[in-house]
């Protein structure tokens, strides 16, 4: 374990009775990196996060934050990390200011009022300070949660679907803020989300969980490259049989969504050749659209049990 690693997880196991929710997973989070934890519902993401935060007891394996065993140095570890989720809010009955003051004291923040005001300025929620938390909007609550998550100057933040329930504009602003924080503070992130575009944008590396196990781990680009097939959609003027004749030797799958368009699923390297051969055969191509695989395609393949990409 090097000093540049903020979190190291080894052989983590969590059982709920006879059901194994997390099945011996191992991974690490390097300093300043964002690691995405993805997977279908029931894959074990939430349980993993809960175990990493110490609110659910682990059955096997070890967790080290900053080289310290979490089980033996719980308080010291929790002092240096934080968490924010769209599913957990702060105390709704009291004001934003009161909430932040309570958490600043729980983290024993020096000059707590000054620290809160710095973050409040950064997130531009000065006008909300004396509002009760349950009176502010979902987007504003997310910002308050993030301020809470930054009060102790954490070196690692666990973010559980931070943009869920936010409109696209607010979600985009939030993601920009997260990118900025990551850049400015060398912040490490463990990030879960169902929005694959968001994960591609934020994460340096992605871990796919399924049935409690890691089934794939790579950069977002690396994972998408594991899907070798792209989708080629052509609009054409002419006879469908000509296209069928040209495509026959390639043994590729295709459909005709309309009489004058075709959607072909084929290996990426074949695309230029296929287009060239179609032109040579006299097919008049009026439009070309190539759709490369995305992280969402990887997610769907894993969720549907097509683990050949892993």
């Amino acid at each position, binding site marked *: 374990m090097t000093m540049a690693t903020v979190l190291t997880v080894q052989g983590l196991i969590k059982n709920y009775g006879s059901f194994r*929710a997390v099945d011996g997973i191992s991974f690490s989070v390097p300093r300043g990196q964002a690691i995405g934890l993805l997977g279908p519902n029931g894959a074990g993401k939430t349980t993993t996060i809960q175990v990493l935060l110490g*609110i*659910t007891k682990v059955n096997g394996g070890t967790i080290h934050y900053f080289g310290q065993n979490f089980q033996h140095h719980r308080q010291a570890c*929790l002092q240096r990390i934080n968490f924010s989720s769209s599913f957990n809010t702060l*105390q709704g009955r009291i004001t934003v200011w009161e909430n932040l003051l309570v958490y600043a*004291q729980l983290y*024993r923040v020096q000059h707590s009022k000054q620290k809160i005001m710095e973050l409040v300025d950064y997130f531009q929620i000065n006008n909300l300070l004396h509002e009760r938390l349950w009176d502010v909007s979902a987007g504003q609550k997310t910002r308050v949660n993030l301020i*809470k998550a930054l009060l102790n100057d954490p070196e690692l933040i666990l973010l559980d679907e931070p943009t869920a329930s936010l409109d696209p504009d607010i979600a985009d602003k939030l993601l920009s803020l997260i990118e900025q924080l990551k850049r400015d503070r060398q912040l490490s992130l463990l990030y879960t989300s169902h929005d694959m575009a968001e994960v591609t944008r934020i994460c340096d590396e992605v871990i796919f969980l399924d049935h409690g196990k890691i089934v794939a781990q790579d950069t977002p680009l690396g994972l998408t490259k594991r899907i070798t097939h792209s989708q080629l959609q052509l609009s054409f003027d002419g006879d469908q049989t000509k296209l069928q004749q040209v495509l026959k030797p390639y043994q590729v799958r295709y459909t005709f969504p309309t009489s004058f368009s075709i959607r072909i699923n084929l290996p990426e390297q074949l695309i230029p050749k296929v287009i060239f051969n179609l032109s040579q055969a006299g097919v008049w191509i009026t439009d070309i659209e190539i759709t490369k695989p995305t992280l969402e395609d990887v997610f769907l393949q894993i969720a549907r049990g097509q683990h050949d990409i892993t």
Partner: protein
Amino acid sequence: MISLERIKALVQQEWYISKRSLEVIMDLPFFAVIDVMLFGYVAQYLVGSAETEAAYYLLLGAVFWESIRITQYSMTVSSLWNVWSRNLSNMFITPLSLTEYISAHMISGVLKSTVITSGLIVLTAVVFDFNVLVIGWWNVLFCFINLVMFSWSVGLVLLGLIFRYGVRVQALGWAVIFIFQPLSAAFFPVAVLPPVLQTFAKLLPPTYVFEAARGNLLDPSINWSLMLTAVVINAVYLTAAVIIFKRLFVASTDTGQFARNES
């Protein structure tokens, strides 16, 4: 290491919640006043019908009973405010320890109980011309300490049950304590209870406290025998309650119920 700052933070949060929640204001000072007023007027009627002794028992019992109810309510229901707000797990992912958490809620319960019980003592003196302090300052203090200790024990076990089994058992938080009202003979001499219930009553520290307080109406000297019996049983209860609470808490984190409480 225990941090006074973290304990203070939770007590402060309790203060913020209490002052901003109509529910807390209704459940604690409002119902306490209504209860004492009710028993006060019954007592006033009894004084008029030559049942003076019973009248004072009622008033004394009503005031002391509130110190039990308020402390236990504070211990248990305060955590529910955070469960309902989905804030409890946020608090437990800070360096907050279980000891700090329990200590803060014990302190918070005592503070609320002290303020409200003091108010009730003034109320009975002003409205019903009955001064609780006639039993002696020290007796009031010892009674209060013993009753608070008992409330802590009950509150801790109920809190543990809520953590362990979730909000489906949350009603226990404000209902269970009333079982102890007749069983501990809060308003009448313990001899009134049938023999079987007297046996149960003798297992409860408040029984000794209420019995001693009633005796102090005639003789304000401290009844060490009854007070020490209450202290000893309370010490056993509190130790057992801490152990039970810890076990329930660990079971709650083991089954994942602790995190699921907010989902």
